């Protein structure tokens, strides 16, 4: 099913190579958080151990609050499916410094690789487009990934991308679990005051 798709850890690494000081990342709970932590913990990443369905909206609040920085949400298909309405909400606000990227492997990895709705035809790019997001990309190969990485570097319009990844289970890399610590160190890294 996932033959020829991109490998998730390598895809995460390519997207965030030369990420720059002004890039903030919000992963979804589960695999995308482990993928991000595998690149080394970064104070400007807000790792998630829960809040399923909330990653894109956390990204929106952050992007509105930090218009001078780029905000990239990188979540999984299951996590995005739980909060699809967020795409309609985000499309209205259209923050130019926000990218929502979905690593789509067609399965719920954390619960035992059960098929997700995308495997049966739910089209996340189609949903994002229909919600009114002008730039929606379907990334299925290395060239597409390189194009997406380039767009993130000079991000100046709201972007949605679905990245087809293989249904693999690389070893978990677990970041700090204490939510209050993650929050405080993120805020310190961004330089915001109480």
């Amino acid at each position, binding site marked *: 099913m996932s033959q020829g798709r991109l490998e998730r850890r390598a895809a995460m690494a390519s997207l965030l190579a030369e990420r720059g000081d002004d890039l903030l990342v919000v992963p979804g709970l589960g695999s995308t958080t482990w993928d991000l932590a595998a690149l080394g913990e970064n104070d400007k990443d807000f790792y998630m151990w829960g809040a399923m369905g*909330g990653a894109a909206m956390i990204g929106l609040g952050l992007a509105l609050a930090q218009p001078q920085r780029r905000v990239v949400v990188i979540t999984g298909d299951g996590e995005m499916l739980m909060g699809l309405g967020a795409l309609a909400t985000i499309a209205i606000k259209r923050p130019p410094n926000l990218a929502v990227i979905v690593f789509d492997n067609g399965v719920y990895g954390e619960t035992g690789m059960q098929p997700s709705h995308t495997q049966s035809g739910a089209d996340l790019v189609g949903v994002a487009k229909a919600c009114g997001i002008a730039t929606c990309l379907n990334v299925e190969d290395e060239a597409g990934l390189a194009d997406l990485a380039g767009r993130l570097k000079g991000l100046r319009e709201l972007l949605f991308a679905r990245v087809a990844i293989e249904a693999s289970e690389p070893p978990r890399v677990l970041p700090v679990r204490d939510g209050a610590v993650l929050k405080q160190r993120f805020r310190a890294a961004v330089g915001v005051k109480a």
Partner: protein
Amino acid sequence: MNAPMKTDWPDRLFDTLKRANVTQVGYVPDAGHSRLIERCCADPQIHDVVLTTEEEGVALSAGAWLGGQRAALLMQSSGVGNCINMLSLMRTCRFPMLMFVTMRGEWEEFNPWQVPMGSIVEPALKLCETQVYRAREPGEVEGLAKRAAQQAYGDERIVAVLLSQQLIGKKVWTK
């Protein structure tokens, strides 16, 4: 009393949010909050964010705080039920969360479908470690809102102000 009470409490509530430096306001369209929503949408300093479901506003508030802004969430009592799991995010990370909830299902409610959620708003919020205040009279709104904002942003905790159905008035079903 059949006509809604004419009071300026939504304007006082708006002023309180401005003084508290709230710059993101999430809401699901709601008759009881309509005046406050209009004021927020008309203010260029406020990001008004219309949501498809109230839990989006919880996550929005977390993102706002991560980026150094203060958010508030406006909703009807039925929306509280939609927020429950996402409030775990606020509890685990100790994010501030300020909610203003217009109550349905209590005073002279015509629609019985509003009663099940309306009747458990207070205990449900309290189970989620929320400090709950209730305004019954128009004159109480501003003071409670000010206190709630201080507590939410100052102590980084979840605070809700419930706006009793008497404040909003009875929904007119036949015109």
